[in-house]
């Protein structure tokens, strides 16, 4: 097993498995409860496949009432619960617990209401991200956040992870596109937040829920904002002799007041892997390749293509191509979109990291990453959401060679520490999960993390929902609630008073 340890299972719960199974079968009838080891294998991991664990029992409820009763039972009987959508988390957010019920929401798969006039779509959480767009595209609409797993990932999982995608610099993350949620607390209470209206007053629990990685509540219904598809989109493929030139070009595009629909950068190893795989026509003699996509009204896109061409030229681009057709635009993207499988071809295994850095630090971070690669004896290829500074280093390793996974994890941790050191963060869109859990102390102080865990206490005092994720140390809520007050001892002589 690898470096990240999960909490020790509760022997008492393991011993009560039969009793828990019967209770759950009484709530969710028929095939909605899975307890056969072979059938439960399908749930033992998510997209962080280095980690596997069979759950205690798998439950697939079909109604909000069932979700509520399952959670209330688990709450009353001190049984842990791991919620799961499509299981595409790259950070181990849906990794089961040996002593925990795995709550799959994939039977909640219906689109409930499409309201074009109010640009709102109400769906159940198991509907896929792309499924929302599919439901509205006949009227020219789409749902903007587009994580690369959008064919498979569920909107409930998108809420849990606050998913992004290629277009989020212009159109925002999940949190900026959600209008309403219905959720169930671990106590079984059903709570509705927001609606088809904007900015409900009262505490912004929508903000807290979005990106909470399944630790606060189980989402049973989601209302999202849809947008009319841009009239057109065109892309430029721009090659640079150095990553500094590429970085400066990105900064100059933004300084010119242009927010592209997508702006992706790849480094030389990624360019070569992608080109070998899909033959997208990428130049091989450049250090950095930029894809800039401009979307919007035709009149605007044509004008901005010209502006970006000028900016690229002024920044030493050695290679500039503008898509002349929709087919050519798709070809530009084909390489980038195939970057992960392309890297999968040149290496038996890879780890996909997800830090964000201030863009100006890109050349420094790439240089330091090369040093780290040499030290850990592993290769790395980089793809980069250049507009928002979200870096995805792909660390190449071979799980069959003893010690290589551990080396890859150590290399990844060093990269994320580097991101924090230059003013960035541990994760831009994949979530903390278990993968980055033990690095949280590199970004936050103990007090910062305690205040986050106090939020957890308001929702789930017993720490039963998805424990072992996000936080490296679990503090009991009673301990977190203690205050160390020193009455009459604080004369605060320095504060100006009137």
């Amino acid at each position, binding site marked *: 097993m690898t470096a990240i340890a999960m909490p020790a299972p509760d022997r008492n719960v393991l011993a009560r498995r039969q009793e828990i199974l019967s209770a759950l079968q009484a709530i969710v009838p028929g095939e909605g409860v899975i307890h056969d080891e072979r059938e439960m294998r399908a749930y033992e991991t998510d997209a962080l496949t280095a980690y596997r664990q069979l759950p205690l029992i798998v439950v697939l409820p079909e109604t909000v009432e069932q979700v509520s009763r399952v959670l209330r039972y688990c709450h009353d009987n001190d049984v842990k619960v791991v919620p799961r959508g499509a299981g595409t988390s790259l950070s181990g957010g849906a990794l089961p617990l040996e002593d925990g019920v795995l709550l799959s929401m994939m039977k909640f798969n219906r689109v409930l209401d499409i309201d074009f006039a109010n640009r*709102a779509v109400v769906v159940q959480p198991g509907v896929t991200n792309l499924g929302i767009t599919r439901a509205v595209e006949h009227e020219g609409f789409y749902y903007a956040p587009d994580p690369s797993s959008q064919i498979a990932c569920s909107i409930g999982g998108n809420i849990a992870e606050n998913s992004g995608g290629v277009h989020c610099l212009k159109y925002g993350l999940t949190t900026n596109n959600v209008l309403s949620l219905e959720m169930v607390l671990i106590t079984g209470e059903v709570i509705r937040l927001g609606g088809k209206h904007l900015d409900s007053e009262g505490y912004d629990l929508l903000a807290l829920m979005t990106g909470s990685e399944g630790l606060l509540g189980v989402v049973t219904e989601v209302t999202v904002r849809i947008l009319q598809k841009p009239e057109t989109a065109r892309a430029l493929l721009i090659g640079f002799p150095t990553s500094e030139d590429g970085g400066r070009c990105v900064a100059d595009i933004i300084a010119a007041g242009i927010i592209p629909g997508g702006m992706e950068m790849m480094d030389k190893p990624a360019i070569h892997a992608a080109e070998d795989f899909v033959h997208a026509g990428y130049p091989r003699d450049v250090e950095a390749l930029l894809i800039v996509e401009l979307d919007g009204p035709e009149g*605007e896109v044509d004008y901005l293509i010209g502006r970006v061409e000028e900016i690229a030229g002024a920044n030493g681009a050695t290679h500039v191509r503008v898509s002349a057709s929709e087919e050519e635009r798709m070809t530009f993207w084909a390489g980038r979109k195939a970057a992960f499988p392309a890297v999968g071809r040149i290496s038996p295994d890879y780890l996909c990291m997800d830090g964000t*850095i201030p863009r100006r630090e890109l050349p420094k971070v790439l240089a330091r990453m090369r040093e780290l690669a040499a030290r850990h004896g592993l290769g790395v290829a980089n793809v980069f959401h250049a507009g928002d500074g979200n870096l995805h280093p792909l660390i190449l390793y071979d799980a069959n060679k003893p010690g290589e996974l551990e080396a890859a994890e150590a290399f990844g941790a060093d990269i994320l520490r580097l991101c924090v050191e230059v003013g960035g963060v541990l994760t831009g869109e994949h979530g903390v999960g278990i993968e980055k859990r033990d690095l949280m102390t590199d970004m936050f102080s103990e007090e910062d993390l305690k205040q986050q865990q106090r939020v957890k206490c308001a929702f789930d005092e017993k720490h039963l929902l998805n424990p072992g994720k996000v936080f490296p140390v679990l503090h009991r809520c009673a301990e977190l609630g203690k205050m160390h007050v020193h009455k009459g001892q604080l004369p605060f002589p320095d504060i100006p008073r009137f």
Partner: protein
Amino acid sequence: MDATFKPSDARQVEDAVKWAAAEDQPLEIIGHGSKRGLGRPVQAAHVLDLSDLTGVESYEPAELVLTVKAGTPIAEVENLVDGNGQELSFEPMDYGPLLGVEAGRGTIGGVLAANLSGPRRIKSGAARDHILGMEAVSGRGEIFNSGGKVVKNVTGYDLPRALCGAYGTLAVATTVTLKVNPKPEISATFVLSGLGEDDAVNALCQAMGSSAEVSGAAHLPAGIDGGEARTVLRLEGFETSVDYRFKTLEKLLKPFGQPARLGETASRDLWRTIRDVKPFAGGNTPVWRVSVAPTAGPQLVGLLKAKGDIQAFFDWSGGLVWLSCTDGEIHDREIRAALDETGGGHATLVRADPSVRANVAVFQPQPIPLAGLARRLKEQFDPKGILNPGRMVSGV
């Protein structure tokens, strides 16, 4: 001892709150005090005044990121980014004209605490959509950091966003990091005249559902800020693009009549008027801010006009209804009943005497499980209940 504490750094804020927590002394948290008339009146013996907690910590126009102390005047923040061709695209409204206090006041901390926005909310989001990170002092008197200083970050719970709109009842922000955006090259307004409310909101919703990238969609009925009804749509961006999209709207909304076009200055003035609710400025009638699904706006107003003498206009494509109760009544029951009847939403009493705001639910009452969760959240941040007690809900 009634004191006003005026800290000039985060450590002093921490000391003041620590003391207040130890001595069970509630604090009213203010910046310029320009929005003191919003929400319920706070019962606190002492004032924590953040207006000396000012200054820009870092501003990286190329990164679209700005970090400032929470007491920095909003006017100063807007001037700074404007000088770099950027803006706060959530377009925070100025409550000054409506509440009868000096215009142009307020701090960035206050803007975030009230989660302000403006007409551009429908395209670009509210204040909460632009916060990236925050340093704050909890009601426990402890400094904590959350979020980050980059535009894309999902590390840990999104506390900075959740603290927006909490009216200073959970924590006192000391430093905030915001996402800024490029300022559009030009702005123009597409104006249709003489439409009734149903037609107007229909036209607005069609425009919002088009690819015209509308950044303001409002309806001013006859008698509100002028004689004739005006249905207005704002277009912003590069000049060629604005011209192109104006034609798109012309084609799309042809059945609603021939449009007029307002240029830069007239457009700016009009949207400032809408943003700051100037049609209801200067009076003392009760004013409500109601958020509903856009298509429900006209129906809601129709129901209410049958109950009393009420004036209304619409922003956010019909979804933000500003109501002035010209008969002087509060109409809280009628407004909330009408909301229930039209699909739900939120009604907030934004202008009324303090005695009224102490006795009427100023914010939309919450169902019991939600109110319970909100109360537990408050207890986790502010167990002694010393930060702006009662500002949002009595006893919280």
